[in-house]
């Protein structure tokens, strides 16, 4: 275990020297909002919160912390769902929310240069006057920051066609653990040498502090259609998804929701979803006007052949917003069905959808906890939302245990424990299932290359071998049971 004892008075004094008054929070009430991120079940109060306004201030803070061995937890908007920005009790939360300026929208090169605290949606809003937008659109886009998006390699409903954050970022400025600023990529695609940009995307604040991001902007498509297709069972909806992709169509978005999610969303958002459906698909198609009308007709035929009993095609922008509203508010909507919910984030090969949903239903039965399923169907990213009541004794533990089982199931069928929300503190145990000790050691070696003193977001992302060892051999890796030679009853 790392020893985090350091001279707090001295470090505080030094930090006061580099930050304006008011940008250093140390009082109990002021620290409260930083106790957790979007994974609210796990809380911790940090030693203090530092809110730099410039890259130079970030550099100074990091240098002080590195010299005295103070843990740093970077934080964007705190919407992360895996506890990545959960504070360290002995450490500094480095909040980047004050570095929230759009530095440049450059329509000639179709790029935007941003400070890390810029909200995701603000980028597209600022680019709109040039007919451009930033494609990755997590459902949290009104709140989450571009720095957090890079750190989590976030996706959105449009990432099937337009890619994840990593596919849309041209460059970053990053402050390393020893307080050096690196400018990686930036002006245009592809930088020389090892692809540091790729490894920073999704690094969950464990390799460096991102202080500037250059993203690619795209021209808005001429024409968009959004289609809702309702099915009497989940399997048919799954067939429809496979058929669409099998015909060589890559929709701009293709989302699936199960009955409970549909009902919750409908009651919450009045989106016009048929509440008797066992599953719905939302499909967005974009391109030129003729292309979209051709595609819409084709997809309409495909979903009906697959068994859709109701198809609603939204042509006006207003109608389209209505259909999307249900999906985009699915999380808060499900949140009204029970006092608490726990959002999972596995990815599976799509062909395994039927089997995985059946097993989730069985787990739901066993644990006595309801589950609503929201699914980025095009790319196999599943978000089961487990409903529970934290005030009921044992409910939270049951939800966590059941969630863990779902993730292990995802690995077993050839998928992964996290598609877009990151490992954080939440999925450390399941990482032991997905990676063997040699692979985990390699991750640690890579981490040490960036952060030899281990001050950046310690304890997140990669489980220690001891932790995995203690979890024991109960886990299934690549579908193989441990100790297969033993008889099982």
């Amino acid at each position, binding site marked *: 275990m790392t020893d985090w004892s350091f001279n707090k008075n001295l470090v505080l004094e030094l930090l006061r020297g580099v930050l304006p008054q008011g940008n250093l929070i140390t009082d109990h009430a002021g620290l409260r909002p930083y106790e957790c991120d979007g994974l609210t079940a796990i809380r911790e109060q940090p030693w203090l919160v530092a809110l730099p306004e410039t890259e130079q201030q970030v550099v100074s803070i990091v240098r002080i912390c590195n010299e005295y061995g103070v843990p740093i937890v970077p934080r964007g908007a705190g919407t992360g769902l895996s506890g990545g920005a959960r504070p360290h009790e002995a450490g500094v939360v480095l909040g980047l929310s004050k570095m929230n300026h759009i530095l440049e929208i450059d329509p000639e090169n179709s790029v935007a240069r941003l400070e890390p605290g810029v909200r995701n949606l603000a980028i597209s809003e600022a680019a709109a006057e040039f007919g451009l937008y930033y494609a990755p659109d997590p459902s949290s886009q009104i709140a989450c920051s571009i720095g957090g998006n890079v750190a989590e390699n976030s996706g959105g409903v449009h990432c099937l066609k337009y890619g994840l954050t990593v596919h849309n970022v041209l460059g970053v400025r990053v402050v390393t653990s020893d307080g050096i600023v690196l400018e990686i990529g930036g002006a245009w695609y592809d930088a020389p040498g090892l692809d540091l940009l790729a490894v920073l995307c999704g690094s969950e604040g464990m390799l460096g502090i991102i202080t500037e991001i250059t993203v690619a902007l795209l021209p808005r498509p001429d024409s968009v259609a959004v289609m809702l297709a309702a099915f009497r069972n989940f399997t048919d909806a799954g067939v429809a998804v496979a058929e669409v992709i099998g015909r060589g169509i890559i929709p701009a978005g293709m989302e699936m929701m199960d009955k409970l999610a549909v009902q919750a969303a409908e009651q919450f958002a009045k989106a016009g979803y048929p509440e008797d459906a066992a599953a719905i698909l939302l499909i967005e198609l974009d391109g030129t006007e003729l292309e979209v009308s051709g595609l819409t007709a084709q997809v309409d035929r495909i979903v009906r052949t697959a068994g859709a009993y109701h198809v609603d095609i939204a042509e006006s922008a207003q109608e389209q917003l209505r259909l999307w509203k249900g999906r985009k508010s699915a999380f808060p909507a499900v949140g009204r069905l029970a006092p608490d919910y726990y959002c999972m984030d596995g990815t599976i*090969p799509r062909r395994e959808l039927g089997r995985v949903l059946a097993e989730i239903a069985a787990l739901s039965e066993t644990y006595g906890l309801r589950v609503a399923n929201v699914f980025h169907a095009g790319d196999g990213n599943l978000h089961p939302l487990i409903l529970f009541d934290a005030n009921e004794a044992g409910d939270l533990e049951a939800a966590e245990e059941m969630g863990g089982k779902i993730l292990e199931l995802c690995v077993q069928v050839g998928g992964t424990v996290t*598609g*877009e929300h990151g490992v954080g503190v939440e999925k450390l145990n399941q990482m032991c299932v997905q990676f063997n000790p040699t692979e985990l050691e390699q991750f640690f*070696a890579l981490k040490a290359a960036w952060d030899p003193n281990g001050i950046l977001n310690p304890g997140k992302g990669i489980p220690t071998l001891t932790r995995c060892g203690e979890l024991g051999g109960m886990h299934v890796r690549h579908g193989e049971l441990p100790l297969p030679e033993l008889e099982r009853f």
Partner: protein
Amino acid sequence: MDQTELLREVVVSALSDGRHLKVCGQGSKRHYLPEISAEISAEMVSTVEHTGIVALEPEELVVTVRAGTPLKVLRQELARGRQMLGAEPPEFSGLGTVGGALGSGFSGPGRPWRGSLRDSVLGIEVINGKGERLKFGGQVMKNVAGYDVSRLNVGAFANLGLILQASLRLVPQPDHSRTLCYELDGEAALRFCRQVAQQPYPVTATFWHDDNLSIRLEGAESALDAAEARLGGQRDATNGLWSSIRDQRHVAFSAMAESGAVRVICPPNAPAPEGLDWSFEWNGGLRWIWTNALSVNIAEYVHRANGWAWQLGCEVPIESGQKQIMRRIKQAFDPGDVFRSPLNLLSNLDGSDAD
């Protein structure tokens, strides 16, 4: 044929004997790279026998393929299901292998629209410098478990390990493809590309050479018709223009064989270089200057253009702060310096060459 164990033994025994290895496929990109310094002998270890498509799942949009598989074979196999890789790595007269393409990371003329080769990598299996066989990423489209070691290995010129196989994302082949040509000088061609880029045209590649601009459109026929009606230009009837650019067989590249080339990456709106023989791809974001030396003149131009330049056959220019991190990463994967690579990130150097 699966040669995993054989390749692993080669690495393990090199490590224990203190020998060095240089990983190669067919050697099709040798002319790009500096020679590894002669005083250190490095044995070649080739992946060309490690071939085969391990799994092809068109409906999941993914293929898993061994490193020695020729790109051309992979392309032909994917075409049977009307699919392809998004990126267009050079095949170099059919010699290029999947491993070589991943190791060098080149993406072809469609890179800004169709994405880079690295973008399509979903998972990778490597042998690191300790002779350990490791798997990162997977076969699914979205995966943020652990650091993205898969994409880190793309373009790493086998500094970190030997790539055994990779899972790659596939895209459907476009229904139609059409090329429009325009007679424009360099500055006018750059300007035209910029205007086109502001609109959602189905452009997937651009190339300018000898006062001729070619723009590739791909997608539904109706979309191509609509774009052509607005963009005008002459339809290009010749076949194979884009594969000749991809493989650098196009006449523009003959200058490379004769006198060498400087490869410049810069924002597309950077001004055209004056008084130089040059061509561009990627709307001007990738510029080839046909010359045998990175003269002061060119260096100044590249600096003004806010770009970076690499003279083929010479060392890749890496800023010293980044090189330090890259060295430490190299050390993390290959502590014994088994892998010698033209990127020259030798981990045991003390960093004294920092510039």
